[in-house]
């Protein structure tokens, strides 16, 4: 039994007069310890599907059909309390925008430790602080003791994204959903964050659903890839297979759109 099973997921919006379907027949399985990439251009429905899996889509103005079974729980039909007990515990999300996804009025330490406070109430505040600092040092944040009492505006973009990952990893989730976590970052920082995700995956056997429009990142990180176009999965398979032998025209087009750097090293 795999960790996450999504079958025939359809998402339909009703906030206009004509209902609009944004995701059609979405199927996905993720095993424990797997990194799966979800690739597509803007408007392809990749974020929408991921938010549905995380249980973060509101229940108003839309219908979701199909089934999402995560770790034995039916995410579409379970109670809100059950959903809350999963979010931030066995399932965590890292968002794209590190500038807006932290609360500007709360200290870093509090934000990293919040999920621990909510889901592991038996841990004493002193222990919690110790663990938060440990988690922060795991994501390569220097001087975590000092950072603990700082506010988000004192940090750079790359550091904030590490804090976000630390917050998501505070109680070692089984599945980490990363929605374009590196898009807003500089290239060198981007590479470091990717390394960090790989490290987390190896160390804790955490599954990662990595959503991105950047094919070169997906190629360097993921075991399997799904390509989405206009709300549908058009191609899926192992990273090697999809990148080296793409079956669909759209995938070929996506891959050929990455500018090539061909340096002939004959006279090097």
């Amino acid at each position, binding site marked *: 039994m795999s960790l996450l099973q999504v079958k025939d997921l359809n998402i339909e919006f009703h906030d206009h007069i004509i209902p609009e379907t944004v995701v059609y027949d979405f199927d996905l399985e993720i095993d424990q310890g797997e990194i799966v990439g979800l690739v597509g251009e803007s408007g392809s429905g990749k974020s929408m599907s991921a938010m549905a899996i995380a249980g973060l889509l509101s229940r108003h103005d839309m219908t979701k059909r199909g089934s999402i079974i995560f770790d034995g729980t039916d995410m579409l039909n379970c109670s809100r309390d059950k959903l809350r007990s999963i979010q931030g515990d066995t399932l965590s999300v890292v968002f794209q925008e590190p500038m807006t996804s932290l609360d500007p009025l709360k200290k870093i330490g509090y934000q990293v430790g919040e999920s621990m406070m909510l889901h592991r109430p038996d841990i004493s505040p002193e222990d919690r602080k110790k663990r938060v600092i440990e988690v922060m040092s795991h994501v390569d944040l220097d001087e975590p003791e000092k950072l603990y009492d700082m506010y988000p505006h004192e940090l750079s973009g790359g550091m904030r994204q590490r804090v976000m990952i630390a917050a998501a990893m505070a109680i070692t989730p089984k599945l980490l959903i990363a929605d374009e976590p590196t898009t807003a970052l500089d*290239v060198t920082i981007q590479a470091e964050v990717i390394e960090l995700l790989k490290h987390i995956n190896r160390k804790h056997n955490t599954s990662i659903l990595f959503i991105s429009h950047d094919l070169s990142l997906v190629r360097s990180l993921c075991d399997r890839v799904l390509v989405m176009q206009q709300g549908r999965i058009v191609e899926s398979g192992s990273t090697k297979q999809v990148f080296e032998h793409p079956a669909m025209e759209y995938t070929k087009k996506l891959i050929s759109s990455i500018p090539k*750097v061909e340096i002939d090293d004959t006279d090097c």
Partner: protein
Amino acid sequence: MILTVKDLHVSYKNRKKNSLKYDEKEVLKGLEFSIDENEIVGLVGESGCGKSTLAKALLGLIKSKSGEINLNCKHPQMVFQDPYSSLNPKKRISFILEEPLKNLTDMTSEERRKKAEWILGEVGLDKEYLDRYPSELSGGQRQRVCIAQSMILGSDFLIMDEPVSALDVTIQAQVLELIRELKIKHKLSILFISHDLRVVYSLCDKVMILKDGLIVEQGDRDKIYRNPQHEYTKKLLKSAGITI
């Protein structure tokens, strides 16, 4: 040479909180470079390195503190990063395209309209787009309009500030192809600012690497990609997954 820059310094003044004194922060610390006719020079750097400041200083939108900028071109123009905020949402495309002609030439309205139709054709858009508003266009189409506006005065030097980084990959490839064609057809010189080393490689003749207000390395594209000298350049190339 269409552009020569010598020992350019630019700094910002910020007033300190609760004080009348100004805090001076040097953003560009003595840049030296030149751009030839019909040449695309890539300017690579990460956020906060002074890329956009350089662009604005070259166009005279902000004052430089010291140094020389010699620009042998009449109306240098700029293409901005975000195609959503660089077109006035309340104006039709025809107004946006004709604006430079209205202000800086004495063409009649028919001549302006003709020219706008022509330039739109040059960037691969149908003339029916003239009567649309920016909100009716996709990101790629908007960026085409921006390029058209920057070219309508017949400028031979353009600055492009991350013109494709807000676009999807497939659209990005199309716009890059367009820039390549326009460069050859209209003999353009372009300062192409980007953080994406792959895009820079595919488009530029020369490359400059900017870090903390200083050019740490510059030269022919192949030389830099094949044989980077500076540690920072090596790190950038490695981060982008480009290894020799």
